[in-house]
């Protein structure tokens, strides 16, 4: 494993920040994505409704099945994201306290490498090792995978807060915990929010794969199409998944813009 250089840890944060900060969209900019997505849905609808569906296709491509899969997918994404944040943000705070300084750069390298572990491997390992299948197995897999980026983002966000500000806080007589609550966390909010968005995007994507451990979601539709060799079903499943992911990312982006503390 390469020795972590201080360089590694300083270039990456700067980069994440640059992209997400200073990002003010015009009104037209806000309308592009919903327009594209609506158009994609319309094209998909017209494409499917012009086809003569056989009985296998009709079983998958009806409003009840599709909205059911969609709803499962949204539930998986929402529950896993909330749990991810509840675990990763406090961990990030703990790992940035002074007592972890000697191991911090190794920890960051380890976490970065951990991101290469395939999502599908995490899910399948739960299934084959513990014979753990279904909704909660999927949640465990999703959370395990999404923790890393959120944790990294939280750590980076807290570390980039200007040390002089913290010292000023201490000088004003604030307790350490007050400094954390009143200065560090608010100043790190933009980067933590970027982590939330990352978690949502990762979870909505990985949730497509949980069909392989019997946990439902839109992946069910794709796999139904694959196993029956029906291209139309595959395309509908894949396109709906893509639209949902882009929509969630778009909404998270708006939330990011709105929730950023004033003055930053």
């Amino acid at each position, binding site marked *: 494993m390469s020795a972590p250089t201080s360089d590694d840890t300083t270039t*990456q944060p700067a980069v994440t920040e640059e992209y997400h900060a200073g990002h003010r969209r015009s009104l037209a900019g806000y309308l592009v994505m919903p327009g594209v997505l609506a158009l994609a849905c319309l094209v998909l609808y017209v494409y499917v409704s012009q086809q003569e569906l056989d009985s296998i296709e009709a079983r998958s491509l009806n409003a009840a099945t599709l909205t059911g899969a969609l709803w499962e997918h949204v539930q998986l994404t929402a529950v896993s994201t909330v749990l991810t944040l509840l675990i990763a943000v406090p961990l990030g705070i703990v790992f940035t306290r002074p007592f972890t300084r000697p191991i911090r750069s190794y920890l960051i390298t380890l976490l970065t490498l951990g991101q290469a572990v*395939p999502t*599908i491997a995490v899910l399948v390992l739960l299934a084959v090792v513990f014979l753990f299948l279904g909704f909660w197995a999927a949640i465990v897999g999703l959370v395990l995978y999404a923790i890393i980026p959120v944790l990294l983002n939280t750590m980076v966000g807290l570390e980039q807060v200007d040390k002089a500000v913290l010292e000023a806080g201490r000088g004003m007589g604030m307790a350490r915990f007050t400094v954390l609550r009143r200065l560090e966390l608010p100043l790190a909010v933009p980067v933590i929010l970027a982590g939330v968005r990352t978690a949502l995007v990762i979870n909505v994507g990985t949730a497509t794969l949980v069909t392989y451990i019997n946990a439902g979601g839109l992946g069910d539709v794709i796999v139904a199409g694959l196993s029956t060799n029906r291209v139309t079903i595959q395309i509908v499943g894949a396109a709906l998944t893509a639209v949902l992911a882009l929509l969630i990312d778009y909404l998270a982006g708006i939330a990011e813009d709105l929730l950023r503390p004033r003055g930053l």
Partner: protein
Amino acid sequence: MDFVDFLVRRSDDMLELGLGHAGVVGLSVLLATVLGVSLGVASYQRERAREAVLAVTGAFLTIPSFALFILLLGPLGLGTAPVVVALTMYGLMPVVRNTITGLREVDPAVVESAQGMGLSRRQRLLRIELPLAWPVIITGVRVSTLVLLGIAAIGAIVNGPGYGELIFTGLARVGTPVAVDLVLAGTLGVIVLAVLFDLLFYAVRRLTTSEGIR
């Protein structure tokens, strides 16, 4: 250790799958780097272009890999082609983002003095700006590589090469003892590749960063 036995018995497989996995990721990283740096160079000076390029490549990264592989199945068929195209699309965003950041962080005074020395726009870019931005760009390439190593495993769905095959075979045999070995072997293979690629980056970064800023 049963697992070690398994690895020894299947070492030919492990090597072959590893080469396939590394090959498909290596090729995609290369394509993503060439395209990504070009896009970054073409767009970094204008805000509109920058935002558009980042929005589009960011949207690529948002599309779930399972869905993208399936959507590419129609036009490209099964095998390596859809995997390489999908992985290249996923790899673009970190490279583009870091290229733009790196180029924008170059001190304007340095560029101006290069201009004063009579260097053309092209010479300034190739001799001054890109070398100075290189450490940031290569960090982006590294992030891309790690992400792609993981996603490549899902490429087994469309018969792509690599360790994903072991994971999906294991899944199909859930409940049998060999299933755990198969999945663990696939996962371990990807992790080993990640460490190897990371070492490679460390070396490449050292060798390709110009001496003055090392």
